[in-house]
């Protein structure tokens, strides 16, 4: 966009300082909140508070705008360089925080929006002669980061899905407990671009307390323990260990799974799939959209496979 070396230097400095500040704030709050909530033993990725994806990118944009404003750049250039800023932040997260590509793909629209908003706000603020407001805004943002870091972070959600299977309940039940490899074509876009999808389920025994394994497409295994085993009625299992992939799985723990079966009295069966998960990334309103969609598609892939197997010999 600009060719003058001093212009280039100001733009680059804005991007680097903005990113440096965000690395310090995100890294600091992540380790602090993970330590405070005593999660160092469980989740390998720690907790990302909502400030990490909202306040910090806003500050990042405002900081970059501080370096850019003497250049009198056009609004579209501010947006363009904010996009570069976002890209650099994602690249830094990939290298230093070992985030996965799909995870960064999910979070990048949020970061782009906030970095751009911060830069455009900075553009207006720094063009004013009075900078008192700017300092108070920065102070307010830091206070929000601190309050957020020291706040309680619990986000446990349930996702529930229902499917009608055209087979009697006793034909459905065996495939609910364990099923042979899924051969259905992937139709969810995140599965298509490499997110692991469920493939097979195996069990050690057919009783409560027995072990169950859910195997995913990249070889990841969820070790489970069946806690409720009521044939033709309910299967509930707790997740004992789960893989910590740099992708989504590092930021979410699946806590429990459940299948409920209902005889509809007309030779068909209603299958209800429930999953409880805990999110380690905030804001919940944004990441729940994604985690619900992913969990729902895991459910549907398994339940459609169960439907296919159950209806095979009816």
């Amino acid at each position, binding site marked *: 966009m600009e060719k003058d070396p001093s212009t280039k230097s100001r733009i680059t400095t804005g991007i680097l300082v903005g990113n440096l500040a965000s690395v310090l704030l995100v890294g600091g709050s992540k380790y602090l909140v993970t330590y405070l909530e005593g999660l160092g033993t469980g989740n390998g990725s720690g907790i990302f508070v909502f400030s990490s994806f909202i306040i910090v990118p*806003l500050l990042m944009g405002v900081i970059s705008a501080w370096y850019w404003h003497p250049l009198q750049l*056009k609004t579209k250039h501010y947006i363009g360089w904010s996009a570069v800023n976002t890209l650099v932040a994602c690249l830094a997260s990939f290298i230093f925080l070992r985030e996965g590509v799909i995870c960064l793909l999910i979070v990048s629209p949020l970061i782009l*929006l906030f970095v751009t908003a911060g830069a455009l706000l900075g553009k*207006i*603020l720094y063009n004013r002669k009075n900078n008192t407001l700017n300092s108070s805004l920065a102070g307010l943002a830091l206070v929000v980061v601190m309050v957020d870091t020291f706040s309680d972070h619990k986000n446990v959600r349930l996702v529930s899905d229902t499917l009608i299977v055209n087979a009697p309940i006793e034909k459905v039940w065996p495939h609910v407990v364990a099923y042979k490899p899924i051969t259905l074509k992937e139709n969810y876009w995140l599965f298509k671009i490499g997110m692991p999808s469920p493939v097979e389920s195996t069990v050690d025994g057919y009783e409560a307390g027995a072990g169950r394994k859910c195997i995913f497409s990249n070889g990841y295994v969820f070790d489970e323990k069946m806690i409720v085993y009521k044939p033709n009625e309910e299967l509930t299992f707790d997740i004992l260990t789960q893989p910590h992939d740099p992708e989504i799985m590092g930021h979410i723990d699946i806590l429990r799974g459940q299948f409920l079966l209902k005889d509809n009295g007309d030779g068909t069966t209603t299958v209800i799939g429930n999953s409880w998960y805990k999110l380690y990334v905030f804001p919940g309103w944004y990441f729940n959209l994604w985690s619900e969609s992913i969990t729902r598609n895991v459910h549907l892939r398994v339940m459609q496979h169960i439907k296919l197997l159950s209806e095979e010999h009816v």
Partner: protein
Amino acid sequence: MFEWVVRYLGFLKHIPVLPHLFDAGLKLISLFTHKNLSDHIDEIETEVLSWQHTHVSAHKYGGVQFNSTRHELGHIHGNGLLDILLNRHHKLLIISRYPVQDHHVFKNSGWISFWIRTPQDKQTAIALLRYVYELKLPQPKQQDLVK
């Protein structure tokens, strides 16, 4: 979409920073839907800032606000919607002269709205802001006129 958000989610505008995020989103989308819009808004800003005693600030509900000393002249949202507050007399006068419309939310008020899309619209927006600017210029006192 803008109309839908304003109508059904308008109550969220009181949450700090949220309107500015929405406006940043509008600017991002406008880069693809009306690629010259941000340049038009920048040029309007440059022109207004060349007038005496004017400055810009962030509008509380998102967008860039043009001010003359202590008065707001008008504000432009990220999608190119210019809003100006007038009294009833001047509103009727402006509506008879320019292709402006009632405010997109406050229909029965002194507010008017004008969509900026083309270079011609940019000139009209500048003319509208100049009209308000001159209205709000301090009137010379009688004794100054005698001198």
